[in-house]
């Protein structure tokens, strides 16, 4: 016996009342809207205070270094000028505002100078390398030859780093072939399946994220080369790079997968999709851009590591395309090898190789932005056209079906419509 309960609508009258005062968009006509206020803008006297402080600081520094005190050196000049600048600026602001605002202004100045110092230092490091490497990069043979026939006194028009480029690509390719599937599936395991073991895995991976590269090299050296007795090869180097990259990829993908909105997953489950279908059709496409970033982060760390390759593969100046046999050098290792020589040409080659390495990393980032730069559901023009075409096709199909159904209904009118 089943029991069904009906309740009469008590709120009939209330409902009616509610329908009368519905939510509606307020009428905005007639309300004047002024020009949009600029919240952040510098007043004129702020700018004058900055300019004045800069001029005063320069004057003080020049005076101190030129006439009064026996000071010298570029670094000292910059430091003195900066300190004078901050002090004068604080004084100037203090004439018009209270102490709290003065602290705010001065701290903003300090933050800005930290940013300027950091960005200029990093950009200087990069441009220094690019500029010193330019003579080597200007010779096209640098990209297409190896160092087999280049003697120590040969000019830059002989020899190149093709073997190192190929070695890097092979090693990172093998490392990616292992670490992408393993890393992403592990991250899926942490997020989609969970449990006590997953928490343990996450703890271990977290602790391993900054595994010293030399330790990864030592591990592969002791496990593969001493343990199994394999020779030092590109494959061993790739394994060492994998050990380094894997925790980085797992951790970064884990963070990204955690950001996939739960209601998307639940919607998929509610439609009857299995766990695997949900992962394949909802979770992974949603997190795609983040996953690409995670892989690129790992690759960038792995591609620039010198010491694991030094330990497990060794240095060679000959092209070697077989990862299982013989030493195979990589770009960072080649840089390291070049600059140990006192010959200026070799040092120039070292800088050139470093520049090639940086360009490779930059290219990777560019590729990552192209592949993974869009958010979930954000389509490229081509994809949008494809989606529109699909949608149009669907509409035509519906209409065709509807026409067929109408036809059937007219042919067999005695059949009850479902």
């Amino acid at each position, binding site marked *: 016996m089943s029991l069904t309960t009906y309740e009469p609508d008590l709120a009939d009258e209330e409902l009616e009342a509610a329908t009368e005062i519905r939510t509606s968009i307020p009428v905005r006509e007639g309300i004047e809207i002024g020009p949009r206020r600029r919240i952040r803008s510098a007043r004129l006297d702020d700018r004058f205070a900055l300019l004045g402080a800069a001029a005063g600081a320069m004057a003080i520094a020049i005076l101190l270094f030129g006439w009064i005190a026996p000071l010298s050196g570029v670094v000292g000049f910059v430091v003195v000028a900066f300190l004078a600048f901050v002090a004068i600026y604080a004084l100037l602001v203090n004439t018009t505002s209270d102490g709290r605002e003065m602290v705010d202004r001065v701290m903003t100045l300090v933050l800005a100078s930290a940013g300027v110092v950091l960005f200029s230092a990093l950009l200087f490091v990069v441009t220094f390398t690019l500029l010193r490497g330019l003579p080597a990069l200007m010779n096209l043979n640098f990209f297409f030859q190896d160092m087999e026939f280049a003697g120590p006194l040969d000019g830059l028009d002989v020899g190149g780093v093709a073997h190192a480029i190929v070695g890097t690509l092979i090693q990172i390719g093998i490392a990616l072939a292992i670490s992408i599937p393993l890393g992403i599936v592990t991250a899926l395991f942490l997020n989609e399946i969970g449990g006590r073991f997953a928490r343990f895995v996450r703890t271990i991976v977290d602790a*391993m*994220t900054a595994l010293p590269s030399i*330790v990864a090299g030592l591990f592969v050296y002791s496990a593969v080369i001493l343990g199994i007795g394999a020779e030092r090869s590109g494959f061993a180097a790739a394994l060492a790079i994998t050990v380094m990259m894997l925790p980085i990829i797992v951790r970064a993908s884990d963070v990204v997968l955690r950001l996939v909105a739960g209601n998307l997953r639940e919607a998929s489950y509610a439609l009857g999709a*299995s766990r*695997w279908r949900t992962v394949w059709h909802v979770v992974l496409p949603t997190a795609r851009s983040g996953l690409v970033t995670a892989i690129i982060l790992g690759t960038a760390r792995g591609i620039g590591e010198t010491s694991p390759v030094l330990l497990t593969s060794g240095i060679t100046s000959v092209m070697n395309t077989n990862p299982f046999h013989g030493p195979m050098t990589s770009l960072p290792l080649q840089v390291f090898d070049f600059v140990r020589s006192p010959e200026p040409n070799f040092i120039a080659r070292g800088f050139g190789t470093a520049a090639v390495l940086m360009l490779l990393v930059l290219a990777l980032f560019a590729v990552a932005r192209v592949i993974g730069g869009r958010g979930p559901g954000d389509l490229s023009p081509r994809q949008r056209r494809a989606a529109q075409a699909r949608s149009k096709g669907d509409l035509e199909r519906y209409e065709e079906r509807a026409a067929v159904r109408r036809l059937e209904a007219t042919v067999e009118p005695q059949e009850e419509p479902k």
Partner: protein
Amino acid sequence: MPIGAVVTDDRTLGDTTTTVILADEAPESRPPQEPRSLVPRPSRSDVVFRSVAFSAGGVTVAIMLAVGLFLSIRAGSAIQVAGLDFLFEQKWSPETGEFGIAAVLFGTIMIAVIAICISVPLALGTSLLISEVMSGRLKQWSITLVDLMAAVPSVVFGLWGVFFLQEGIIPVSRWISTYFGWIPFFAVTDQEGTALTDASAFTSSAFIAGIVVGLMVVPTQTSIMREAFMQAPAGEREAAYALGSTRWGMIGAVVLPFGRGGIIGGTMLGLGRALGETIAVYMIISPIFAINWQVLKTGGNSVSALIALRYGEASEFALSALMAAGLVLFLITLVINFAASSIVARSRSGAESEA
């Protein structure tokens, strides 16, 4: 009651009238339902997915545990010979049985501390600048630039350190040692205690290596700190402004407390990387096997540089000693990373309170 009969029963509960329909249906048309099992029966693809994912997790952990295991096994013979002296001996000659990591460990920590002293103020300032002061396109560009800089290979920093900073930093080092020489760290003296002013006394020092490693870890730290600062809740920021706070006051009252976990975590992750950095230190420093308190003076060492320096010519026993040194480095970074990630994770849960 006849099968299929419908009984209508009006009951009064308070002022509401409830109509109850009791329907009895034919048992053969719909059999009595047992309570449905709420445990899903996984499809075949799910079973496969589960087991594959589980084994991937297992493989990952196995690799990571194998790192510690293999190092310990290989390090065993050296540690058996040296015993606890391994931590306190400064010399490194495994052939004569006199070897220990006191000097290299001291050098490693010294370089890492210098690196942190340089990188943390810069990272803190820049991340606050990006998250609080900058806006619009400039902000996006800065974020991208910092992320890009985090990917610059360490060997590039090493090149810069060797070919630019070695010479460029000498006047600064000399100035510090002249005017702050009364602080023992900054003095540069020979064995008799006379102050050195020779340029060659200032090259290849722990100070230079520390600066280079510091610059190397700044982008990573900046990135982590900025992320933590940007998660500070908007409601509390606005509340601070509404109470009349200046921007710096708001940063001090809201952003820094909320981002504390990020600051600590970022610092420690940077420290972990600084401790493990090999090639840049190896390129810059001139290796010595003695504890050198004078950071500006030439000579220093680090565990990873030691390994890179000596592995090639090492006998089996010397290799075991190197493995032991690697194991110590591994354990130190493990502890630091573990602490860092737990601090970051704990702070993250608090910052999500309001968007």
